[in-house]
């Protein structure tokens, strides 16, 4: 078995044993609970929003949790002296994280189909989730590199979501309606993510869609290169403790 697959299988197994998989099921149940409590029968508008929250924050958290377990237990050091390339190591975490987001989406979609009215493209949503989760897994690595412990990772994630997500949300919901502000939020990755997910409803102009795709696509590649570069100093810091 190639080492990437060994890492991937190991990562999946630990997701189960460390109850991370269980935690993401609980989160999915919470989303289902919210859908259940929603009075309006047509949830096409709120659905991308839930998926957005899940794909961004869960991607950051899952990457962060696994790294912090490895740091805490010292298993990271065993990994660092094994014949594993850093690309394989990082990508195995990304694949598991993205898969988890995709599974959550599918479960929520099935629930929505059965019990609610929903009218959006699943394929569009799936592609959007993959890209959004991939991008935010990279954010998860960067935040993990620079967070002392899991609590500080949580705080940093809150900061990220507050700075980028709040403005996006305020504009998306129309609470803030100001030309300058509307333009400024385009700088935020969360706006691109929201646009992309929302495109599955068919309510996004193609210019915006292309911009969002380019932002997250190119952004993901740049971030991944960045994450690979930064890994060496992270490894030296953590391996040398």
């Amino acid at each position, binding site marked *: 078995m190639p080492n990437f697959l060994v890492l991937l299988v190991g990562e999946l197994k630990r997701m189960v044993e460390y109850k991370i998989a269980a935690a993401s099921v609980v989160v999915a149940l919470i989303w289902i609970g919210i859908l259940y409590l929603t009075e309006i029968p047509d949830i096409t508008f709120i659905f991308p929003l839930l998926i957005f929250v899940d794909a961004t924050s869960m991607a950051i958290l899952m990457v962060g949790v696994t790294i912090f377990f490895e740091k805490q*237990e010292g298993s990271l*050091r065993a990994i660092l002296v094994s014949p594993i390339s850093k690309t394989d190591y990082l990508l195995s975490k990304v694949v598991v994280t993205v898969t988890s987001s995709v599974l959550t989406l599918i479960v929520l979609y099935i629930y929505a189909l059965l019990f609610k009215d929903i009218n959006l493209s699943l394929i569009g949503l799936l592609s959007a989730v993959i890209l959004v989760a991939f991008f935010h897994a990279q954010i998860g690595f960067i935040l993990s590199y620079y967070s002392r412990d899991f609590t500080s990772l949580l705080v940093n994630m809150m900061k990220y979501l507050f700075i980028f997500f709040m403005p996006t949300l305020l504009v998306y919901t129309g609470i803030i309606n100001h030309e300058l502000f509307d333009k400024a939020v385009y700088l935020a990755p969360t706006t691109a993510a929201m646009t992309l997910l929302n495109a599955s409803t068919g309510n996004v102009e193609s210019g915006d869609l292309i911009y969002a795709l380019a932002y997250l696509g190119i952004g993901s590649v740049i971030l991944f290169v960045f994450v690979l570069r930064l890994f060496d100093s992270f490894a*030296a810091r953590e391996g*040398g403790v």
Partner: protein
Amino acid sequence: MFEVRNLSYKYPRNREMTIRGMNFDIRQGEIFGLLGPSGVGKSTTQKIMVKLLTDFEGSIYYRNRDLKIYDKDYYQEVGVGFEVPVHFSKLTAEENINFFKKLYKNQADTDTLMKRLGIFEDRKKKVSEFSKGMKIRLNFVRAMLNNPVMLFLDEPTIGLDPANARILKNLIKEYREGGGTVLLSTHLMNDVDELCDRVAFMANGKIVETDTPQSLKRKYGESSVEITYVKGDNLQKKSFEMETLSKNNEFFELVRNEKIVSMHSKETTLDDIFIKVTGVESYA
């Protein structure tokens, strides 16, 4: 196997150098001991040599090639035994070993190793349920799972009871008999005395002495005879140098005239040499 020249290292957050110009060679097939008091930089040296710390000064050659040239394939042939446990605590011992083992081209018979070390029966237990000593033994299995040609062991017997320390030391010796090379760092003299072909004493981030344990004892050793005898109502002790004993009249007088209680010959231990060379009391 290794040529280390003018090795120096400073941790990024420290102001002082931890390693200050180390020079040593490790020959193929030997157990090379790195000995020194706690905090002298033994683990740091190991971490540099297993490429966990990379921004060192000086040069390290492994099999005649610069260590910096080696990529991750370096780990295909070396084994690293850490001082502290490095396992996934929520996986079983067996799952831990199998996960890492699959990453290597060369795979050891880990079941036999676990049996020898007495953790085979507990292989299906989660590592979090393991005692400290069991985790340390599992560390050794992990270090050996690729049949390495070069083995790094950092304080391998710390935290083990004497019986298990014995087993581990036998395994290390067998590994050498099979052609393996070992860098072993420790502050325990017993381990060095028993295992090491050559030993380097570290003090102040440098190597201050390198030799075989035997010739170190010869070099620094002074053997003497200590006599306890009755003088009036008290016991008295007196020491005589072994070398000059045959010409020592005081010694003969004493033996002839006094009531001797005991007579002991005393040889310098590596412990004494350790204190002499490093200027630090070890706590062996």
